[in-house]
């Protein structure tokens, strides 16, 4: 059986890859993908904790199911916004959508 520390190392790495992608990518779709990475790493955390450490109740599994459902809803709204933004800006690059500044 894979030890729990390997799993946690994997999920934490995935989370920070997501954060790094969110801070460096310039494409809006790539930003949404980075957010999905972050949320999925949290899902792995919940499932691992539930299976290895607290197998009595299903709290963690339920939490991850709800996270998956809400991530889908979030992606739906975000992509609708990106489509609307593409119609007016004709681009999905973050640098082209820079009208609001200090």
């Amino acid at each position: 059986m894979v030890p729990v520390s390997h799993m946690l190392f994997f999920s934490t790495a995935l989370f920070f890859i997501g954060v790094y992608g969110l801070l460096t990518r310039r494409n809006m779709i790539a930003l949404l993908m980075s957010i999905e990475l972050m949320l999925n790493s949290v899902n792995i955390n919940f499932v691992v904790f539930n299976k290895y450490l607290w197998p009595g109740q299903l709290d963690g599994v339920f939490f991850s199911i709800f996270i998956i459902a809400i991530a889908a809803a979030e992606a739906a709204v975000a992509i609708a916004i990106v489509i609307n933004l593409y119609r007016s800006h004709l681009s999905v690059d973050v640098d082209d959508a820079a009208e609001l500044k200090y």
Partner: protein
Amino acid sequence: MWTDILLLMRTEMMLILIIFLLLFWKLGGGGRVQIVQAVVNGGLVLALLLGFVLSDSGELFGHMFRTNDLLRLEKNMLVLAALLVSLLASQWVAAHRHAMEFYLLMISTLLGMCFMLSSANLLMFYLGLELASIPLAAMVNFDLQRKQSAEAAFKMIVSSAFASGILLFGISWLYGTTGTVDFDSLATALTGSPLQVLGVVAVLAGFGFKMSAVPFHLWTADVYEGAPVPVTAYLSVLSKSAILFVFVSVLYTVFGSMQQVWYIVICVLAIGSMLVGNLFAMRQQNMKRFLAFSSIAQVGFILVGVCGVNATSSAAVVFFLLVYLFSNLGAFAIVQHISQSTGKETIDDYRGLARANPALAWLLAIALFSLAGIPPTAGFFGKFFLLLAGAGKGTWFLIIVAALNMIVSLYYYLRVVKAMFMETQASRTGGLCGRYFHHGFVWRCLRVYFQPHASVEALLLILLFHAVWLSIKIILLKN
């Protein structure tokens, strides 16, 4: 069981009823916008009345949902604020193609806030938070033709998704180290081990994003400027109040045993928010951006009160947010009125407003005085109670910084008042004066009180004075 659900969840049930009504109405082809507005406003009034009739407390669904008198008061405040936003948005929504969808999204976020307030479980809290923030991004995008609106909506949804990602990361570590997501069991299971500290800090960062405390405030000004004015009002009053209510209760009850971890974090957030909010508010020209930075500074003052960690501080936070609700919505009502009738939003456009349109200028001045915390208004008592609560711990440095910041904030609030009362419009054509100048004062007042949304402003004024009176009464009772 069923009567319990109906009684304890009556505010939520009423909101769900409005949502379903609107959905089926939309499916059936929709109706005239005025009738939709009347139904939504009537439903909100009914929800407010239902919230006031009985006082009860209890739990539902195996300790997922709880309610008590304080939560009911907070929910009533939110419903009242939503009603006021719906009234001040009425003219703008009536001209929009998708009026019904606007109300659907608005009531959905309100429902999410109510569930978030009533949550007794981190899962329920997360669901309520997302229900309160995902439809908001769609509301920010509601000026479909304007480029800024789409940009603001994208910034909003990315930063709110990032914030929930961090929040969930923290929650997952809390779950991993304690094995529970229930608030009461978490409070007893937290021991302060390093992993739990990581979890608490990540959860605090997520909260900081949602309530736009410095250094997590970068999305706020852009989103507030890009969004339509009623949505900005909604963001700055409702979603901010809801998250602050939950923040205080989670901090005090769930993380109560880890106070030495978060106390210094909250102090730093408070000082940073006050300083950055005030300094940036000084250099803003756009009214919406100006109010955005002012609301960041107000969050700093609220966090000073939160630092007090006693019963007075949670009462002071609720009272301050009640006052903030009226004064901020009053300011936004006037910004919306002027932006709707002339399309102007910068401070320079407000020059000479007092001569052209005294009623509006006085209302805006009173709202700004209340935000600044000048004595006869209720805002003064709100800030006074907050500082009093913050002083309870004896961190005098924090209180001194807050007091100095209150003086600094006078500068930029009075800048708008000065523009309205002491400066004259350079060119009268195209300015605010041009349209109203020829009407006499009496005629103008009459017109103000016969416009549907201007009566909202009158209502706000009355309520503001009511709040002043209330605070004086509280002081008399205390002594």
